[in-house]
């Protein structure tokens, strides 16, 4: 496991080196699906050219990020709703912890799914 994701890497996440990039593999397909559904919901508000991708590599925040503050707020709430609907668990993606982590959980779709998985795991334990 790379220390890079140590703050919230869960057993359901595997990373491997591919073409020099760390690729995040979300094995918890159900969580990833919920995140993608949330992205789909947010995309309904957006013009075609501004729609968010739905692959684990899609960069959300950072220099090449596609998410402005409005999209981020919408995405967070949409994910929380999806998780509540699919897992019957209430999570908070916008609490102090998520904002203070050294590695941004909102960096990519994959890291976001990982973070959601971590919160779910905590809830279940």
């Amino acid at each position: 496991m790379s220390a890079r994701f140590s703050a919230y890497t869960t057993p359901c996440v595997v990373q491997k080196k591919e073409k020099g990039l760390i690729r995040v593999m979300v094995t918890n397909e159900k969580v990833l699906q919920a995140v993608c559904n949330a992205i789909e919901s947010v995309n309904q508000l957006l013009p075609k050219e501004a729609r968010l991708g739905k692959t684990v590599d899609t960069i959300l925040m950072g220099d090449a990020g596609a998410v402005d503050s409005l999209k981020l707020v919408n995405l967070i709430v949409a994910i929380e709703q999806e998780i509540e609907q699919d897992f019957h668990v209430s999570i908070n993606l916008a609490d102090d912890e998520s904002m203070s982590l050294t590695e941004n959980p909102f960096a990519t779709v994959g890291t976001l799914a990982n973070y959601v998985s971590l919160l779910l795991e905590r809830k279940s334990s």
Partner: protein
Amino acid sequence: MTSSTRHGVIVSDFNASSLASCLKSHEDGPAVETVMAPFGQVMPALLHADWPCWHGNPEFAVVWTQPQSVIESFGDALRYQPVSVERILADVDAYASLLVGLRERVNFVLVPTWVAPSFHRDFGLLDMKTGLGMTNTLMRMNLRLVDNLEKWSHTYVLDSQRWLETAGVHAYSPKLWYMGKIPFGNDVFIEATKDIKAALSGLYGESKKLVLLDLDDTLWGGIVGEVGWNRLTLGGHDPAGEAYADFQRALKALTRRGVLLGIVSKNEEAVALEAIRRHPEMVLRVEDFAGWRINWQDKAANILDLVRSLNLGLQSVVFIDDSPVERARVREVLPEVLVPEWPDDKRLYARAVRGLRCFNPPSITQEDMHRSRMYQSERHREESKRDMVSMEEWLKTLGITVKVEVLGESNLQRVAQLLNKTNQMNLTTRRMPEAELFRWAQAPHRRLWAFRVSDKFGDSGITGILSLEIQDLTGTIVDFVLSCRVMGRKIEETMLYRAIRYARSMGLTSVRAQFLPTEKNKPCLDFWLRSGFIYRATDNEFWWDVKNHYPNSESIMLDGDWV
């Protein structure tokens, strides 16, 4: 997308970025670009016409607010302070007057109703109590707002409660509110976008005018050619039969809003018409249909033929058929026609047609309510024409009367509708909202006449407009508009007769008109080229020396003030 981009302003006390984004991205309806007034600055934005958001001649405004932020007394009531309903309603009156004032800045103002979250149950059992309950007060506020705004032709109140109901449990989102000052979930903005775009389509004359229907398993259950009219599934105490009858009732209601119905069906015409005439549970009868093509030809070809015969454009047509194959065929061949996806389950037909957002005329006139009857009269006219030797002879038998009227309150709505909907016989295709048209026509150097046409088969209502602008000794015809329903019956010549006769009475020396071509108004150019006016092709200008009389057709009788 056929229409041009509509530019608007969103004024809101909450973060309405989602609405702006959705209006831009949603593909159905006209393209829309909006700017947002500064967030939370509703009152200053309404008061100050010089704010940057109003620059650039926006065409419409959406003013979407939360009641407690713009009606301060209602906010007090929410905090359990003693406030009378009368005071709250007086505040609503004052707020409405600000909305009315926007007519100087935009053509149309769209105002979603005020709503409160369903979980807001502070008043519990007393919530509907007059003078105390919040829901009771909010209902009164909305009705008062409607009362204030419905007198004005540029303001329309939109029912936002429906958006919330469609959005369901996530309609209100406390999370979005605390994180982004967005009170509603995404689905509310999506529903709002659909209604706003549909409203804009209607306001700019793009409302659908004709619904073409299949028969077997669409208007009734069963194949009439196989089972006979008396074995069709329709009406009675049967879920499917009731559903078909309800679907027909929904269609009948559309005809009262000025929408025409037609039939395009693969059947034997005599067999199908017998079913329509004889089946006791038929809600729609032959007289409810403006026309039909019932044969074994390709439906797309039949649609084209029928629409042409009704003098309509394909872009004003909706086609409803239970067969996905026929729907796909029409979509492919006639992309201008709206072909909605249709439910497999017949019990959902009535809901599907009522849910279509493409019928949004900004007003409903007497002419609209009797449109089907007018087309029926037209069929009778055409039948009578077949026996006549010449056109002039036929016109004489019709007993046509043309009444001229000056633009006024009684005919303004219909005149504005005609101006904004007519495409083919339209000299300049000028579009203008009611209030603006009225102001324009009131200038002392302008005249605008409406022409009401009737004959022995029926009253076609106001079907023509001619406006004249006088400068020095020249009269310029600005609008020359005639409904396609009466084209080719010498009404065109009668309208010019009126213009020239008036010009002579005013001592003018010439009357001119400039034709502005569009994709659809070639019939107008064709008329003007044979009108007798002198034509200058370099700038599409027509000219008449007022020394000369302009003859009126002998087949037309005149009514009203013809100078």
